[in-house]
Every structure is written in C-alpha cells, then in structure tokens.
C-alpha cells in the first residue's frame, strides 16, 4: 500500500479517508444542486437552460462519480454504525471494509450502465 500523510495506509484508513472525501464531495454537489434548482425562481426558460448544462456525456460521467460517492458513503456509514452498536463486529473490520468496497463496485456496474445509456455514443438521442 502507499503512504498518506506520511503514514502507510491500511484499507481501513483508506476507507475512512474515502468516507470523508465522498461526504465532502456530495456536500459540494448539494450546494451546486441548490443553486441549479433555485433558478426555477427566474422562470422555466432559465431553469431549463440551467438543467440543460448537465445533460451531456461529461456531466453524466461526473454524476456517475457522484453516485459512486453516495453508494460508498452510505454503505461505509452503515459499516461504522454497525460497529458502534455491536462492538463485537470490530473483530471483522478487515472483511467488512473489503465487503463495502466490493459492494460499491458491484452496485456501480448496473448503475453506471443505466446512467450512461441515454448519453452513450452508440445510443443516438
């Protein structure tokens, strides 16, 4: 594994860092989303134009990253909450960490396909 902050990371430390990073990323998106949605106050044309900015392939790829952050943050959050309620689970912190990472990857395969399909080059709008 590589070093983070000068300390060799373990998967569990990476999981914690990923939890923070994904949480912060989703929060930043939320601010942007509030601004985007609030354009409805200026009429339907302005709102459609604002929403239209995100209706393209690069924006959709960004939304897939956002979805991955949400899925990971939710699953890892459940892992942390579970260990809070049942301290005995901490014995399995390594498999639980691997499980969260694997579950995120597995969930993102169909989600990515579903999300990318409307904007995929092989799927003319």
């Amino acid at each position: 594994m590589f070093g983070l902050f000068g300390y060799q990371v373990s998967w569990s430390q990476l999981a914690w860092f990923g939890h923070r990073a994904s949480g912060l990323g989703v929060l930043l998106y939320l601010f942007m989303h509030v601004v985007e949605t609030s354009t409805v106050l200026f009429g339907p044309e302005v709102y459609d134009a604002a929403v239209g900015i995100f209706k393209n392939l690069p924006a959709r790829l960004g939304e897939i990253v956002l979805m991955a952050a949400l899925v990971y943050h939710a699953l890892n959050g459940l892992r942390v909450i579970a260990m809070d309620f049942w301290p005995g689970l901490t014995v399995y912190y390594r498999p639980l960490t691997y499980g969260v990472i694997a579950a995120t990857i597995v969930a993102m395969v169909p989600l990515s396909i579903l999300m990318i399909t409307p904007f995929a080059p092989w799927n003319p709008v």
Partner: protein
Amino acid sequence: MDVQLRIRRFNPETDNEPHWEEYTVEAEPTDRVLDLLHQVKWYQDGTLTFRRSCAHGVCGSDAMLINGRNRLACETLVKDAGDKITVEAIRSLPVIKDLLVDMEPFWDKYTAVMPFLVNDEIPDDGKERRQSPADRELYEDTSKCILCAACTTACPVFWTNPDYVGPAAIVNAHRFIMDSRDHAHEERLQIMADADGVWRCRTVFNCVEACPRGINITRAIMEVVGEIQKVGTT
C-alpha cells in the same frame, strides 16, 4: 545481508529541521530493527539517540515509525521489514532528539483516566476482592497494554487534535471501567464522555493495526461508548 537504514534525525542544539541520514548495516534476516539501531549507535555514530529498555516487547519503550507504520523496533524483524528500512520517531509527540520523543503529553492523558483500582471497602473475607472468570474476561484484552504509545501516535484524529485523549488512555480506562471490583465507574465514564474523549474516535483502526500486543482497541472504545450510554452520562 546488507541493509540500507534511513533514519530521520534531529538534534535541537544544531538542527533547525529534521533530516534523513543513511547507514549501511550488515544484518541477518532474523535480526531486529533494534539490533540495526544498536549497530549504528555502537559502531558507526554514537550520537544516535533512541529509547529502549527490555528489548523484548514487554516494556514498550521503543515504538517507532518503521517503514511508515508504528511498530516496536525490538519486535520487527529484518526479513519482514526488507533491506531498505526507514525509521522515524513516533508522531505528534515533541521530538527531544532523533527517535526520542517527549512522552509527557501521553502520560498526562494516561493519568487523567485514573488508571488504578478505586475501592476503599474492606473485602468480605478481609483479604481479597474476588472476581468471577467471566467478569475478569471483560477486560482481559485491555489489560495487555504496555503503554508504548504506538496506537495513540498512529491515530489520524490525534495527529490533528492533540487534545484527544487517544486510544491508549481509553484502553486503560476500559481496563478499570469493565472491572467489577472498581468503584469509580461513573467518574471515569464522565472523563471518557468529554468532548475530547471517546466521541473523537473515527473507527480508522490505525490503532488496532499498530498495537504490538494485538489489542482490539476500537472494540474497547466502542464498549466504553456503550457503558456511557447505559449510565446516560452527558
């Protein structure tokens, strides 16, 4: 085999900043990193400063950042560490010289949790306070702590918040909180429920990975959280 040993050195009398120095040391794969440090100190550079006492993983005085992870130098074998080894002082405690850190901030947190049995009552038989094997088992794991500070100085929360009581102090609080003979249960939980107490734990598990005694520290922290919830301390 020859081992390249990189040591992060700092002499407050001559250096403004810590710097790296390299040494080539001949070693057997079954030698320990502590043996390499002895080689350097005894035969190459007598000014190298580090702390060690028993040299057998009992006293806990030679915790160091070895190849980027907190370990005891006396328990880390060359065959596991490789032929390029970096050694630094443990983090977030003031460096006195080279690998020697000032442990006082660590001891302050340790003593704050009252790490001693509080019981002024005379035992029923006038001699000893009996305890069932099941009750003894509750703190078996945390009674193994050797206070090496490897866990506390591996904790990212402690790196950024030196006021955090830290894993080692919580482990030693747990040892007495879970002791059926102790009478300072709520007093200790009050200390643990402080803003810089158990709530700061972010379940990173660096402490568990670093503990040379294999203590499940995060479990102990979560059990203390459970005790606080039972008592309702705020």
